């Protein structure tokens, strides 16, 4: 299993996810995104997260989110995206 670990900053969530997308081809198994510094997401970031989840699904890669703030977690639950990720503290 080749796992990828990436840190995602609040200011550049969309760019970070695009960068992560590019690495998905070389990933087997899972990709871990550290979002512990993200305290809030906007609709643009939300779209990017959903797209990322779609692409990861297509490639059979499991996405693990690390350090998700509870407010952000609630947003993912409200838009029914939470079930598409694994979460670790």
């Amino acid at each position, binding site marked *: 299993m080749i796992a990828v670990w990436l840190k995602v900053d609040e200011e550049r969530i969309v760019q970070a996810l695009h960068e992560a997308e590019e690495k998905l081809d070389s990933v087997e198994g899972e990709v871990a995104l550290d979002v512990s510094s993200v305290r809030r*997401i*906007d*609709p643009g970031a*939300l779209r990017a997260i959903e797209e990322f989840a779609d692409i990861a699904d297509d490639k059979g890669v499991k996405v693990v989110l690390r350090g998700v703030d509870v*407010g*952000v977690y609630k*947003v993912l639950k*409200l*838009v029914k995206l939470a079930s598409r990720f694994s979460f670790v503290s």
Partner: protein
Amino acid sequence: MATHEVQERVHFPIVTESLSAERIADLEKLVSQARAAAAVFTQFTQEDVDRIVKPMVLAGLDHAQHLARLAVEETRLGVMEDKVIKNMVATEFVYNYIKDKPTVGIIREFPERNLVEVAEPIGVIFSITPITNPTSTVLFKCIMAIKTRNAVIFSPHPNAWRCCSEAVRIMYEAALKHGAPEGVFACLEAHTLQDNAYLMRHKDVGLIDATGGPGAVKAAYSSGKPALGVGPGNTPVYLEKTADLNTAVTDIILSKTFDNGTICASEQTAVIDDEIYDVVLKKFAELGAHICNERERELLTRTVIDPTTGLMQPTAVGQKATDIARFAGLSVRPDTKLLIAPIQGVGREHPLSAEKLFPVLAVYRAKSVDEALKVCVDVNHAGGLGHTAAIFSRNEEVIRKFGEAINAGRILVNSPGSVGAVGGVYNDLPPTFSFGCGTGGGNSTTDNVNIYHYLNIKRVARRTQAHMWFRVPNQIYFNMNAVENVRQFPSRSTIIMTNPALEKFGHVDIVRRYIPEGTHVHVSVIPDAEPEVKVVMQGVEALNFYKADQIIALGGGSVIDAAKIMKLKYESPGADLEELAAPFLDLRKRVIQYPTEKLNWARLIAISTTSGTGSEVTPFAVLTDKERGRKVTLADYSLSPDVAIVDPQFVMSMPQGLTADTGIDCLTHALEAGVSSYASAYTDSNAMQAIRMVFKYLPIAYEHPRDEEARSMMHNAACIAAMAFANASVGVNHALAHAFGARFGVAHGRANALMLPHVIAYNASVPTKFLPSPYQKGYIAHKKYATIADLLGLGGHTIDEKVKNLVAATEQLLDQLRFPRSIADLGISKEEFERAMPELTKLAFDDPSWRSNPRMPLMSELVDLFWKAYQGRGTTKAVNVPRQQTA
């Protein structure tokens, strides 16, 4: 309500046809955007939200005239200048109402109730807006939505789409510019009823806010979604003869002509007292109203009311009075503001009594207040239930009657209907453009819809520290010759209640010795048995006859109980003993209250002559109603004696059997109070002390009846245990003993003894069912038994061992006292006991004693306990204390 809403009243089909896939995709996209915006919005703080709201309000104010003009041009309803005012109210007044109100996080705190209210947004709101107040309603709803962190999809009335979508655009741009999430507002374009139906049922729409006609509201409520809807109006206004007529007439004209009467709260029928009727009409005429004669009324009726439906003609809605007059063929002055048509009744035969959203007002001449109120009720019921009503009066009584008679969410006093109902202008109602009409109007609320209807309000309820109590007589005298203290209580007339044996033994003479000189003393001897109603009433007669101001109850529990009830009936003759015995779960929340007003007053001094019941300090009394064949237990702290005297000289001659029975009754009181769910540190100290005294002194008092110290200590123990159970109550042991004792005629103490070891083991085990108890933190009965075992020095390392040792010690004590150790030992056959079991369990379960037991007894467990008591020994093996318990 206006043109199309009026039509919807008859036709607003619930559309079930399927939409095209393309259209569904469009609608899904809208919802998806709104859902994402609402989700993102949940992260916003109060400051974030308030930072967005203010510029939105300013944008609305900036565009008030622009939007008003658009609305009038598009809908051809109402008055542009008035619509400007509406837009300004929808922004400025609403802002003024909401600006300082928290809507994020904690919104209200009630520290005294340990309650906190926390706001949770709804999410996506689907909002239907009307043709009559199109832009103002949109502005209002946008501001409310942002303030409460919700996203809204608007569905404007088709004939007001352009002005509404412009209002949405202005609000959205202002919101977005100041940080609102993208997609927070959307407005349906060229939509159909199918679109509405689809969105109303969409799983991601959290709430439907339908401000429109009854059809739209009904569709909203029928969708299965939570909905806010407004109902139709038909506002009656009563001009009572004490009214300030200048104010009344001006206000009604102002209201009825505002935006050409399109606000559904505007006055529809004015009911005017006969005495002022002519003056009022004259004033209306002076201020620009045209009073129709009979012929004009008929012409007007034909023009503005649809004869088929009895409802207003859509073409008249929001039109000027002069235009309506012209359509009807009436000749009126060009400056006419309002057309007034006298009517003689309400209903289909009087078409103008219906709702008229245009400047036509029906007037009715009432001969009396009573008639006026009835006509107003008729108007209210003719299509306006739950909406709005108004009254002009200075007579508070009439205003009160009007408020009670009329079913309206808004009852406005001395103010105009339309502008008054909107709120914030003439009164302190929340400013709104959505009038809830309650169930009368088919709505879920009677409120002026406001920000709180756009929130899920969560209540964080912290566990409260339940108030507890420790109430006992404020004077307790104890030890040998304590009876001497009787002398310190002055009295004109004292009655000594006692039983025949005590009188015979000379105990009454001892008491008499200490009653101050000059006191008239009467001795009333009552049977030595649980008091009967008849005996009590005879005692009350004696108290009345001698005008007693003091009762000395000298005896065991029966005599003292009788005296408590006599005092109650003497002081409060109206007290209904049957009613006062009503069952209750919590003494402080009981339905029945004991009387506090007293016709007479008498001090009750209780001198106990047994060492068990502790009735001298308890708030309980048992009464036997022989006629009905039942016992009645009274419980109230007002029954507690004023003075208790615990003098062992009166128990020195107690027989051995009675010593054992009453002693075990005392021990049961203490043990049950000790583990009661009502137990407190106050009751524990008494319970524990009493237990220690019983284990030490009861065997001595039993074997050596003349041992003064043992007798004294047991007498005190009974009183101390009673102070514990008077405040912590007892438990399932008493429930079992009451049932068994009553069914088989076994003395109370003896019946308690048969159950006691089994109940300790039962209560110390893991409960099958916990009993709710705000007084206790967790299940602790087993630990308390262990503490008792420690106190008695019984040994053991674990809680389990200690509980077993306590059970063994209890059994040993019962053996010492030569109690029968099983029900079988009493000579009751197994078959007889089995036959009695259904009745026993029913009686035990109905007994209030177990309500404070640490675990809730199931019926099957009561059966099990009865059988254990039947079989006797061997119960310590049944102890099953919670795991991992070490002392």
